[in-house]
């Protein structure tokens, strides 16, 4: 088989087709590879690239080139959506990712969402970056990452109150999550229209560990599926990343209708594959190992993941910005060379 172009390979895997080898990617968003070393080498830096489509595109392309990841991923944070809904964001520094400073609302009961939210702010910047990248690099999959409904809701309402109100204010919770999901679907639509090959959804607050299986099913699975369904209607594939331990929530994963599921480092993808053979799996090279481990160990682990039949090789979670290029390229090279 001739080596596939990165775009074909990723789309092939997501379409459950047989490909020459698993792609090695890093989606962007909470899992982005805009490390300090790349920024210093290229002079393309954060936080500036959070605010300009041209700068975001240039940095994303440079990240892909230097790291060897077989996709181009935007944006470089998971605060774009919360900002659309009015939360105050600390946009961080070159080495530190943006974070929520103050949520827009104190309670789910007070949430009001303006209908034009998806067409404003940095949503426009990300769409512009996607547009530039998809024109410039037709051979590469452009992965645009969204923050999932539960995590967005927990970033616009004080998270402690939010978590309690998932139980005590169910009606409000469903109303807000429905409205948030609708805005996210519209934003995803703009990204697909701009040329995004794949939409990835990272939903770090919506974990089985935090919510428990019952609330995970009631809120996370339901609204993730609503969002994925809306994106599927535009004929774009979706990858979902679920953080944390799964425990007895593992059985809920096949209920997600995404085209691939990515999990954290502590989850055994080998076992997940055995339990649910139909799942397309992505992951899950420990970001701790990536940050601290010697390159040969990193390469070894990457090859092990390939051997275990993981469909897409990727970091397990958010990368530290102090991770070195030597470590990341050890990972990407090992996957490309394959098991000896």
């Amino acid at each position, binding site marked *: 088989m001739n080596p596939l172009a990165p775009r074909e390979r990723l789309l092939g895997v997501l379409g459950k087709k047989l490909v020459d080898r698993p792609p090695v990617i890093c989606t962007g968003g909470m899992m982005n590879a805009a490390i300090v070393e790349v920024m210093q080498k290229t002079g393309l830096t954060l936080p500036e690239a959070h605010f300009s489509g041209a700068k975001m595109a240039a940095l994303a392309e440079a990240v892909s080139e230097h790291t060897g990841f077989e996709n181009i991923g935007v944006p470089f944070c998971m605060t774009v959506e919360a900002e659309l809904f009015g939360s105050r964001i600390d946009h961080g520094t070159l080495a530190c990712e943006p974070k929520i400073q*103050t949520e827009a609302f104190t309670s789910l009961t007070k949430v009001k969402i303006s209908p034009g939210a998806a067409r404003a702010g940095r949503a426009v910047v990300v769409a512009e970056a996607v547009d530039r990248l998809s024109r410039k690099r037709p051979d590469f999959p452009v992965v645009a990452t969204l923050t999932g409904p539960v995590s967005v809701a927990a970033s616009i309402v004080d998270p*402690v109150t939010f978590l*309690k109100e*998932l139980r005590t204010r169910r009606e409000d919770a469903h109303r807000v999550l429905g409205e948030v999901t609708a805005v996210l679907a519209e934003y995803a639509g703009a990204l697909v229209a701009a040329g995004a090959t794949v939409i990835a959804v990272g939903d770090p607050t919506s974990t089985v560990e935090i919510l*428990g299986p019952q609330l995970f099913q009631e809120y996370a699975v339901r609204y993730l599926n609503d969002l994925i369904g809306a994106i599927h209607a535009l004929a774009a594939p979706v990858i979902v990343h679920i953080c944390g331990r799964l425990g007895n929530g593992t059985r809920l994963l096949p209920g997600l209708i995404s085209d691939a599921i990515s999990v954290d480092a502590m989850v055994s993808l080998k076992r997940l594959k055995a339990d649910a053979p139909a799942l397309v799996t992505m992951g899950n090279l420990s970001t701790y190992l990536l940050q*601290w481990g010697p390159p040969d160990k990193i390469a070894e682990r990457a090859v092990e993941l390939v051997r275990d039949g993981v469909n897409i090789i990727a970091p397990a979670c*958010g990368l*530290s910005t102090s991770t070195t290029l030597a470590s990341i390229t050890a990972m990407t090279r090992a996957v490309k060379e394959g098991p000896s």
Partner: protein
Amino acid sequence: MSQEESSLLSRLSDAVLAMDEAETVRLAQELLVQRIDPGRGIEAGLVDGMRRAGDLFEREEYFIPELLICSDAMYAGLRVLQPHLPSGAAERKKGIVVIGVVEGDTHDIGKNLVRIMLETAGFEVVDLGRDVPPATFVERAESAGAHIIGLSTLMTTTMGAMSEVIRRLDERQARSRIKVMVGGGPVSQQFANRIGADGYAANASGAVAVATRLRQAPAESRVP
């Protein structure tokens, strides 16, 4: 203890466990009317209920939302009973812990849970909130006469600040007086060992176990 008293105490404990704040407050007030020792109300009622909630959390029957709602009920009950504790009542302090998030956003839920569970276990907790500079941890721990500093982070990039706290304690030769425990999403036991922390906990109940161990064995040498 009369039968009425023990029944009231167990109902108070049940109300906390059932996440019923209004009922917890009502029972706490009834306890005062019945002239039952508020100290017992706190220990055998409120704290007992919260401990049982912690057990369910550990058994993965309760999760974070449930634990947070239970703690609201417990604190509401405490607000009723605490003003009625006789002055000079026996302190139930197991130690003083200064906790805070080195750098993070408002998702410092884990740190809040650690505070709740440490308080339930009888520790006095000084919560410094989030984005706390290393120097502040050390200063506040010394001024509070703390036995333990609990550090949490959500950002991998700021994990260096954790070793900075330890370095500052070393400089002041305060490591035997003030122990350091670490936790948070990107932190692991390996990382704790690497920076020379005295303990690592993966979650809130783990943090109680570690803090208890650090208090019981103050002279124990740390993992190199």
